[in-house]
């Protein structure tokens, strides 16, 4: 070790070095080395080298950010600095915390940054629900692209059409990623999440609201435009409540109805933003545009109060994806399978019409 100090001394010979509280400057009297609690002036190059030996954490910190991570990708750099709270905590505190491990959540991902004796960072990435599981009890992966497969299916083996859907399955770990691979892996789980988060921090996130996104659509999706009739945005509230709620999607919805009109539902608490309605929302909205074009009709059904309540229970259970939690014999639950089958046996005619009332006039 020591090459980080050589590199720092070489850099200081060229230009002032300033990072995270460390300052090395040069004048006619020699080098000056400063940290928040120390000041050494008039140092020769050798004396600077010696002095830096006493501030090794500052020196490795400088080395990591200027040489290992570098500036080639501002968004990767910003993300990795955020992961360890750089800029927020002073180097000595931050290094202490890194020795124990600093945790951050990113959607359903949990990132733990740690440091070795040479200041080298390494990252453990796993599902948030697996925070307390011993690393040896999880399936280990080392290649960022392995995340592609892990992100494709949910816990029950069903295809996940939305990468940021709140249904990422766990059971795996990337135990020792370097910074570059950490960002690659995170970006494989949640594509474009880092660049969009970075743009938001820089104040340059290009949010595109519902009206603009819908207006851009052509072909089979151009019909969605007809759903906006200039009289309110209640329908878009429903879309956002159905799809973008934190229980469904880990992005924080930043798009609204239009420049001037916010939606009435909350955008959520996600760490990284959603800048425009996604393709899933567009595809669903095309269906809703058609369905919502229908006129209402009056139907007459006779239900007992418990039956009405049960219909509501079933809708709630499906909407909250709770079907699998309802125990087979739990007949106290309206959405229980036997209760539901009983309701069907009693109320449906042979064509599947509720209370024998046809959907369309005969």
């Amino acid at each position, binding site marked *: 070790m020591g090459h980080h100090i050589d590199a720092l001394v070489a850099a200081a010979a060229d230009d002032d070095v300033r990072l995270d509280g460390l300052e090395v400057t040069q004048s006619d009297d020699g080098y000056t080395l400063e940290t928040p609690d120390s000041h050494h002036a008039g140092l020769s190059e050798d004396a600077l080298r010696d002095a830096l030996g006493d501030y090794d954490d500052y020196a490795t910190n400088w080395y990591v950010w200027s040489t290992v991570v570098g500036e080639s990708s501002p968004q990767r750099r910003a993300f990795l600095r955020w992961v360890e709270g750089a800029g927020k905590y002073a180097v000595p505190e931050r290094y202490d915390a890194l020795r124990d491990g600093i945790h951050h959540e990113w959607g359903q991902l949990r990132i733990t940054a740690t440091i070795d004796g040479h200041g080298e960072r390494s990252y453990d990435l796993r599902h948030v629900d697996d925070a307390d599981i011993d690393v040896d009890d999880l399936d280990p992966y080392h290649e960022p692209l392995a995340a592609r497969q892990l992100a494709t299916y949910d816990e029950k083996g069903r295809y996940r059409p939305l990468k940021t859907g709140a249904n990422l399955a766990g059971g795996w770990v990337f135990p020792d990623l370097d910074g570059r691979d950490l960002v690659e892996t995170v970006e494989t789980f949640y594509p474009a999440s880092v*660049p969009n988060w970075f743009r938001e921090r820089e104040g340059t996130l290009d949010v595109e609201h519902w009206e603009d996104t819908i207006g851009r659509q052509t*072909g089979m999706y151009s019909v969605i435009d007809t759903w906006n009739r200039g009289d309110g945005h209640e329908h878009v509230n429903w879309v956002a409540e159905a799809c973008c709620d934190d229980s469904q999607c880990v992005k924080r919805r930043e798009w609204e109805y239009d420049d001037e009109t916010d939606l009435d539902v909350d955008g959520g608490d996600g760490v990284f933003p959603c800048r425009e309605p996604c393709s899933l929302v567009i595809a669903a909205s095309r269906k809703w545009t058609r369905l919502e074009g229908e006129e209402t009709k009056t139907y007459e059904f006779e239900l007992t109060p418990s039956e009405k309540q049960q219909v509501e229970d079933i809708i709630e259970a499906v909407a909250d994806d709770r079907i699998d939690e309802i125990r087979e014999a739990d007949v106290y639950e309206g959405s229980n399978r036997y209760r539901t089958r009983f309701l069907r046996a009693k109320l449906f005619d042979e064509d599947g019409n509720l209370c024998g009332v046809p959907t369309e006039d005969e």
Partner: protein
Amino acid sequence: MQALVIVAHGSHLNPDSSTPTYDHADTIREVGAFDEVRTGFWKEEPSIREVLRTVEADEVYVVPLFISEGYFTEQVIPRELRLDGWDVADWDSDGLSASHVTLTADDVPEKTVHYCGPVGTHEAMTDVIVRRAESVTGDPNVGEGFGLAVVGHGTERNENSAKAIEYHANRIRDMDRFDEVQALYMDEDPEVDDVTDYFESEDIVVVPLFIADGFHTQEDIPEDMGLTDDYRDGYDIPTEVDGHRIWYAGAVGTEGLMADVVLERAADAGAEIGDALELVRERTRATPQAGD
């Protein structure tokens, strides 16, 4: 630095739709021709809208993994990429000859974007169809005694779709390798349903010119040709139909050699790819047979 971005359709319903895109991206990544290889999708993520911001390099080659020129390559992709000053006339194409244009994109104004024509109309695609026939028969010299059918949608959805099918069928015919070559369509004559009517040869290799396996290639075409009554029961390769043996290859886009066409597109647009083409041709030679 140069990056390759492969853009494709993707699906909300079918996880296999994006598989060929990822496979070809991986093949190209492994030969190291580009500093970065990224993928973007219409229906998956990153969206085509956001894919350019995931790229670090300043020279970006965008290759659409689509079969023909049309709505997606001319309208959707340029719009979603936010290509500045895009005008389809710049491609100066007869429906088959789009090569590339060089533009900037509003999303990443500091980068140069080389927007390429679709893979399906590149001449190298002809070799992929032949390679697909080799893969499905397990015979690197397949040809003699065999008929080959290239299958596409018809003109109903896209008038250029049939042009691409004809183009490759003609090129394969000119090779004089197969006894007979025929272009067939799903929604117009000559129809794939009647495949056996169009061939004398006992053995017929059927290669659908589609990017990914899905509803059309896995359900429609096998049932229409009479390989099976219900696609869920599967079918044999080959299957006997009306005294012919049908070697059904599934979507040509799943053939490993497709990576070669992606590279050719980028190279035509000026990407420096060294010996990547040879490496890819070599490495994709032993692709598994359909149904494996």
